[in-house]
């Protein structure tokens, strides 16, 4: 087929120098990071003498911050991200088709996964592995916190190390949750679902992933700088008061904010301008819709975070007083800017999960998605409302009491579009002969958990009850029900569901069913206990608590440790079945009609021999008709 040959130029036998370097991208990146840090650290310590929080044993804030910035830059340079821009600046020739194909991982083998490539599928898998690794570290943090809270007084940790653990766990989890679904599955499947060979800006896509490792590692480096005591909200002026460990938080958050914003822009551009012929917006798979809405949230909300972080960076290096009242600033300024980003952020977590669940549901109910349009409307509604609710985080802060009724109203309004998601799911399940494969089990758990998360949210949105529940463990349990019970359960469902397509292998075993029940029970055991603890008056982020709360805390801790084990079991099964035992999966084990399941496994480098022509939503399980016309080369549809 000539179409094929035009899509895949022949590789040259003689690799250029640039490629040889690129093969060693990871090593060069580490070297670049180290060099960058040393340079920045040196210059920074020379440059500004009068930073506050000076500490002659570790250096000054400017030194650390500049070191972090340059190390991130050095890392990216080592990965080879500067080659193209510098080439453009010097007016060099555009990379040849051949170079593009190489960057796309053509014939790359396993090496592709350890270097910068522009193949959205490679990037998706890189995301998956990276995020699982960081989630594991964050989970360990949670285990320590629960172990510590077995006793009402300090036991395994002291006040200082406990706060560092809390900060690390929360911030790392927030970092990873913001890309946990959109990173692996958005990058891998959105281009396939909308029928394009590539993202609009493939290098940018690679960049959004490769910003993740520096951000995570910079955050973790806080352990060696004395840690930070502010938790993930980084409230000033406490943040101004913190020592060098705070810089890790700030620089890490800056990089993550950058990553969220850039991936948002890239996704929007891809979805709105590169859809296959015959695919109007009204024919996009609902997961693509959720990614689109999420991307708008990310692109428009993360700048607010960047602004806030910039102010804090100025404060720590030039002693500006944006958040210090005695210097003319206001702590409310940080709270406003941070939550203006922070509230859309939580919908950045959950919206892709909604989309993914609604995408997978028809496959297991064998019926069309019920109420596709209203479902899309619901997600758009959530997206719009999420920008006007942020001050419900500040009900007791003494800020603008007269505005509280409005924010109470807007917050409670969100339960309407969220309820629509349930309506759509119920309609799809209605009279269905549901197939209870493991992903479906996780989806049922998702509905249960998120229902609790949503209803506990009502109590927090109502001002009088929030007076009691605000900043208590009730809040903590509430957002764990939404983020972990919602997003992470959806993530596990998606991993089981999509691994056969991403790797050609499956982890669907009997043991996995046991693991599901273990994680479901222990999760609810943990956070029901914590809801109770919160209602009975235990504030968040404390190392010591009232003695009468110990029994409930013990139950929470025991369940939590069991939860940790069952999560580890999930990773264990994943590694064992997919990496070690390499259990081969069927081409389309769930008999899905989605476009992503009609392309061969492993997915060809450029996805299709010929871009498919979409002709319907991929949910026609009554007729069993595939969603798109793949031309002569379309594989026989199994099970339809």
């Amino acid at each position, binding site marked *: 087929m000539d179409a094929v040959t035009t899509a895949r130029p022949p590789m040259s036998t003689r690799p250029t120098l640039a490629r040889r370097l690129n093969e060693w991208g990871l090593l060069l990146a580490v070297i670049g990071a180290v060099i960058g840090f040393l340079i920045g650290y040196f210059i920074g310590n020379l440059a500004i003498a009068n930073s506050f929080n000076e500490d002659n044993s570790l250096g000054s804030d400017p030194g650390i911050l500049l070191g972090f910035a340059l190390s991130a830059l050095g890392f990216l340079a080592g990965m080879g991200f500067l080659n193209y821009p510098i080439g453009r*600046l010097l007016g060099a020739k555009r990379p040849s088709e051949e170079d593009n194909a190489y960057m796309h991982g053509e014939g790359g083998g396993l090496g592709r996964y350890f270097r910068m490539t522009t193949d959205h599928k490679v990037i998706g898998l890189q995301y998956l592995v990276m995020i699982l690794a960081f989630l594991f570290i964050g989970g360990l943090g949670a285990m320590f916190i629960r172990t510590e809270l077995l006793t009402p007084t300090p036991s395994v940790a002291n006040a200082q190390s406990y706060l560092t653990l809390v900060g690390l766990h929360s911030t790392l989890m927030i970092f990873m949750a913001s890309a946990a679904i959109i990173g692996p599955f958005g990058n891998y499947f959105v281009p396939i679902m909308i029928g*394009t060979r590539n993202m609009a800006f493939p290098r940018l896509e690679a960049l959004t992933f490769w910003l993740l490792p520096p951000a995570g590692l910079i955050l973790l480096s806080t352990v060696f700088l004395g840690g930070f005591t502010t938790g993930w909200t980084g409230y000033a002026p406490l943040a101004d008061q913190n020592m060098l460990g705070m810089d890790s938080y700030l620089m890490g958050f800056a990089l993550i904010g950058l990553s969220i914003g850039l991936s948002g822009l890239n996704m929007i551009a891809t979805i709105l301008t590169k859809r296959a012929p015959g695919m109007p917006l009204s024919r996009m798979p609902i997961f693509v819709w959720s990614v689109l809405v999420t991307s708008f949230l990310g692109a428009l909300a993360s700048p607010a975070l960047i602004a806030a972080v*910039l102010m804090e960076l100025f404060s720590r290096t030039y002693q500006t007083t944006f958040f210090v009242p005695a210097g*003319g600033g206001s702590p409310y300024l940080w709270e406003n800017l941070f939550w203006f980003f922070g509230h859309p952020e939580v919908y950045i977590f959950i919206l892709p999960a909604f989309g993914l669940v609604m995408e997978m549901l028809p496959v297991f109910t064998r019926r069309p998605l019920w109420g596709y349009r209203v479902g899309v409307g619901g997600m758009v509604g959530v997206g719009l409302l999420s920008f006007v609710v942020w001050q419900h985080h500040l009900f007791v802060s003494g800020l603008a009491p007269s505005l509280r009724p409005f924010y109470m109203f807007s917050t409670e309004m969100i339960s309407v579009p969220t309820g629509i998601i349930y309506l759509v799911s119920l309609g799809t399940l209605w009279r269905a002969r549901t197939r209870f494969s493991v992903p479906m089990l996780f989806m049922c758990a998702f509905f249960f958990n998120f229902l609790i998360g949503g209803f506990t949210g009502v109590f927090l949105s109502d001002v009088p009850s929030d007076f009691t529940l605000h900043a208590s463990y009730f809040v903590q349990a509430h957002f764990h029900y939404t983020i972990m019970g919602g997003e992470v359960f959806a993530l596990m469902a998606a991993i089981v569901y999509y691994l056969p397509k991403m790797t050609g292998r499956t982890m669907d075993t009997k043991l996995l069913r046991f693991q599901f029940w273990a994680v479901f029970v222990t999760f609810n055991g943990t956070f029901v206990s914590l809801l109770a603890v919160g209602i009975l008056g235990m504030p968040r982020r404390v190392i010591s608590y009232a003695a009468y709360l110990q029994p409930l805390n013990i139950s929470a801790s025991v369940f939590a440790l069991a939860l940790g084990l069952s999560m580890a079991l999930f990773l264990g099964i994943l590694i064992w079945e997919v990496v070690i035992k390499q259990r081969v999966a069927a081409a389309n084990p769930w008999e899905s009609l989605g476009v992503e399941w009609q392309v061969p496994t492993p997915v060809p480098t450029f996805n299709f021999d010929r871009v498919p022509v979409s002709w319907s939503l991929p949910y026609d399980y009554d007729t069993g008709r595939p969603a798109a016309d793949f031309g002569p080369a379309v594989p026989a549809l199994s099970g339809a």
Partner: protein
Amino acid sequence: MSDVSPTGLTAVDDVEGGGHTLVFSSRLVMAANTSLQLSLLFAFLYLRANNFGAMWHPSGVGTPPQVLALVSLAFPLIALVALWAVRSAVSKSRESGALSGLLGLALLAAILTGAVRILLMYQFNWTLDSAGTYADIATLWYAVMLAEFIGVGLWLLSLTMGHVRGTDRLSTSHARAILEQWTYITGVSIAVYLLVQYVT
């Protein structure tokens, strides 16, 4: 199945957003940038409204030098005109000699913009640790605008180099996108100038 889908559309080899994608994305960047600018505007007005400890604008802290500030706005406008000419030239596909001249002019104006703005920030003479939040937020905002000018300037440089070295002829969509970007940040910088100069 047939080569023609029921939608009546014939299959294509790849979906090329191409120039459309570029212009569209450049507008997306403007949208995100607007969000950043609004955050800074909020901070500016919020700090001014609160004025805790009368530390918004303590006496002895001046405003940016008027003349220099105006000059720093003149160069972007020159570049703007040049870029506008570039765009019309490209769309009319004139011979590339004039185009190179125009691009050079725009680039020169852009470089001067950056230089003058650096000089301007140097002229503030604000020692931030005691100058109050007016000086703080103004400096931060000027720094952000400087960074944006530098960013778009680098983009302009790459286009110019590509055009001059003939490796990459300037496309209408490129010309249009960069014209829009430059217009946007020029407009924003004028607004920032007015705020910092007169809302003290």
